[in-house]
């Protein structure tokens, strides 16, 4: 392939894809799912600061809430827990040994006894040892006990997604393994404002929630975040921009990519895209997506996770079940390739704005 030659002429670090938040259009303008006054005081926060703020408020307002995981004590490898141990005490914000199944099991038991646990898994790539505790235990705790017990206060947070150089084990998007588990909720924010509200809602939701944080955006996403205590309802999608020609659906860091693609489609082809941020994957806002597709007749779904059996397949199947006759074209999925997440080939692996632009063009010109 020509690309091999191309790569070899690049300087060694050039393959590390840099996304500049400063030069990409903001996606923070549409926070229509927050019930907070536009005059409410705000503070400039990036994603990890907003998450930190949410957890601070959670511990402030709930005396039974604790935070634990590997390295959370000093602030965490992504600084999400900075300052919390000093503020709330070492018995409420503490390190655990290096053992994900232990972290998850601890959280299950702590919440079964009546507490609120915010458990951190250092990278979503390492959540698999905890899979048994999450899927077989946390998710089924209420059901199997006949509602005598529940992991109501359980939230597991994990950074997920491409970061430019993360490769197999620092870039994964494992959300779909958990979406397939009844009893869990799965939430993925796309901006600091969304993250704070969704995380507070997740912590307070009386069900076990897996909260995946787009690590790419921890530092690069910055906006004026309301400092008050606010929540964004789970299970509801956010319409980022309205449009008439095609519905484009995504979540997490992919929203930036999709916004780029939509802008390109508008500039080059005059296509009006309706862009939807799912926010929650389980349960997901079927009605919002369906209503949009009934309007546009076309659907493009995009996520970093692998194509086969990825979350896009769930959306595509459900939408064609519900509004088959509204569709003007086959539903497009623009996803990560069916390979382990590669290092040097990351740029080709990810569903970038160009692949999405092509998909949008394809459905509109079908």
């Amino acid at each position, binding site marked *: 392939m020509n690309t091999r030659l191309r790569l070899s002429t690049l300087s060694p670090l050039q393959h590390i894809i840099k996304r500049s938040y400063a030069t990409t259009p903001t996606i923070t303008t549409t926070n229509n799912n927050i019930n907070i006054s536009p005059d409410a005081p705000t503070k400039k926060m990036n994603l990890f600061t907003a998450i930190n703020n949410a957890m601070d408020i959670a511990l402030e307002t709930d005396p*039974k809430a*604790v935070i634990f995981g590997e390295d959370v004590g000093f602030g965490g490898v992504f600084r999400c827990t900075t300052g919390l141990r000093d503020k709330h005490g070492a*018995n*409420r914000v*503490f390190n*655990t*040994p290096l*053992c994900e*199944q*232990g972290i*998850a*099991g*601890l*959280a*299950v*038991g*702590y*919440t*079964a*006894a*009546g*507490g609120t*646990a915010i458990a951190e898994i250092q990278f979503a790539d390492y959540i698999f*040892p905890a899979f*048994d*505790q999450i899927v*077989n*235990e946390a998710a*089924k*705790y*209420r*059901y*199997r*006990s*006949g*509602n*005598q*017990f*529940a992991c*109501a206060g359980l939230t597991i947070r994990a950074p997920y997604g491409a970061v430019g150089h993360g490769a197999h084990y620092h870039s994964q998007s494992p959300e779909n393994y958990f979406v397939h588990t*009844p*009893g869990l*909720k799965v939430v993925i924010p796309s901006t600091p404002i969304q993250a704070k509200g969704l995380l507070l809602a997740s912590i307070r939701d*009386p*069900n076990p929630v897996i909260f995946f944080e787009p690590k790419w955006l921890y530092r690069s996403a910055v906006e004026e975040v309301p400092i008050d205590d606010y929540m964004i309802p789970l*299970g509801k999608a956010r319409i980022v921009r309205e449009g008439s020609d095609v519905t484009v659906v995504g979540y997490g860091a992919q929203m930036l990519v999709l916004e780029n693609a939509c802008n390109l489609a508008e500039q080059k082809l005059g296509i009006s895209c309706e862009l939807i941020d799912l926010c929650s994957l389980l*349960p997901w806002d*079927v*009605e919002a997506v369906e209503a949009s597709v009934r309007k546009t007749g076309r659907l493009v779904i995009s996520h970093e996770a692998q194509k086969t059996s990825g979350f896009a397949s769930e959306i595509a199947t459900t939408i064609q079940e519900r509004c088959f006759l509204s569709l003007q074209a086959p539903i497009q999925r623009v996803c990560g390739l069916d390979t382990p997440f590669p290092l040097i080939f990351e740029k080709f692996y990810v569903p970038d704005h160009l692949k999405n632009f092509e998909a949008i063009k394809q459905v509109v010109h079908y």
Partner: protein
Amino acid sequence: MHRYISVRVLSSSTLSRPSSILSSLRPSSCSPSSFLCKRSYTTNTPPKVDLQEEYVATPIFAKQEVAMPTYRVMSSDGKILPGAVDPNLDREEVEKIYKMMVTVNTMDNIMYDVQRQGRVSFYMTSFGEEATHLGSAAALKMDDIMFGQYREVGALMYRGFSIDDIMNQCTSNQYDYGKGRQMPVHYGSKKHNFQTISSPLATQLPQAVGAAYYQKIMKLNACTIVYFGEGAASEGDFHAGLNFAATLEAPTIFFCRNNKWAISTPSHEQYRGDGIAARGVAYGIPTIRVDGNDIWAVYNATKKAREIATSEKPSPVLIEAMTYRVGHHSTSDDSTRYRPTDEVEHWRANHNPISRLRLYMEDKGWWKPEMDAPLIAEVRQHVRSALKTAEAQLKPALVHLFTDVYDTIPQHLEQQKAELEIHLKKYPN
């Protein structure tokens, strides 16, 4: 030249004499190749450096040569051993315990046959392990949370879970607290502070640590006990549980029923170290091995463990109760296929925890052998009638297929429920 492990047993003088335990670990009983370093563990001060660092010029590969001793209070014929402490419970309590052990045993006998007749789908008996259930449960308080594996029904019954409750769960009727969702013997009861059993093994260990940690920071002055078998102790969750309990200083009592068999796998194929007890020491956890068929040893050890766990400086404790699984693993198992019947008979006849307690009671003049038959007959009557009643009850309402997946039924599940209702209208049978 060799040094010895100095194991300071955390015991009050009322319980046992440390010197008798240490003596078995003096240099004379250690082989020259065993490398042991001097250490002590108390719960008073966490050492900055866990062990004394010593440097040696010859490479010595450590291997434990002497098994941790087994704590025992009664001889096989129910007599208190010299140096041991009789817990001296009052007659009423001892009778309650004895009757409960007989109840468990009798009920198990009936329910095993009931499963064979097809009246319940599955059952697990606890033959031979009744002392592990009752001895531990009697030493705890109702505020102490219990997590089980699946072979601890006596502990649950001691707390008040009735024969009716058991029959309801086993027949999956509408009165099952679990709403008929799980296989028989997967009991759980909020009322009795007993977390619902799940089939995956050892998952309950780190969970118990979480619950214990909650008790600690909420200052509830209680502890959590978690039961598991020696087979389950091979799971990664065992390691997670003990290590977390130790580092988080959680008031957890880890109670291992080492009954020598994990379905068809004997303990020699399960581990090569000194049982489960040796592992507790490795995690920095005060550990005791007890004779699991000696109810007073189990009782005393659990009582002391509770004191240690709920002390000013909370600490987990590991108890390894040596016992024997007299019955099959479950009704899906036929253990004659993998172990000799004379081995089973040996344990049933010579190490019977129920008869041991009975002999103790007879010594005290609290029981006569002829009182057994009427007791057993009464229990059989009770179990049979409770089963019949439970079988006649309605099953849980169909809506409970859909409830409790979440706190409320989500839309997609409401839709599936509606679809099922339509389907059932078409096919009512």
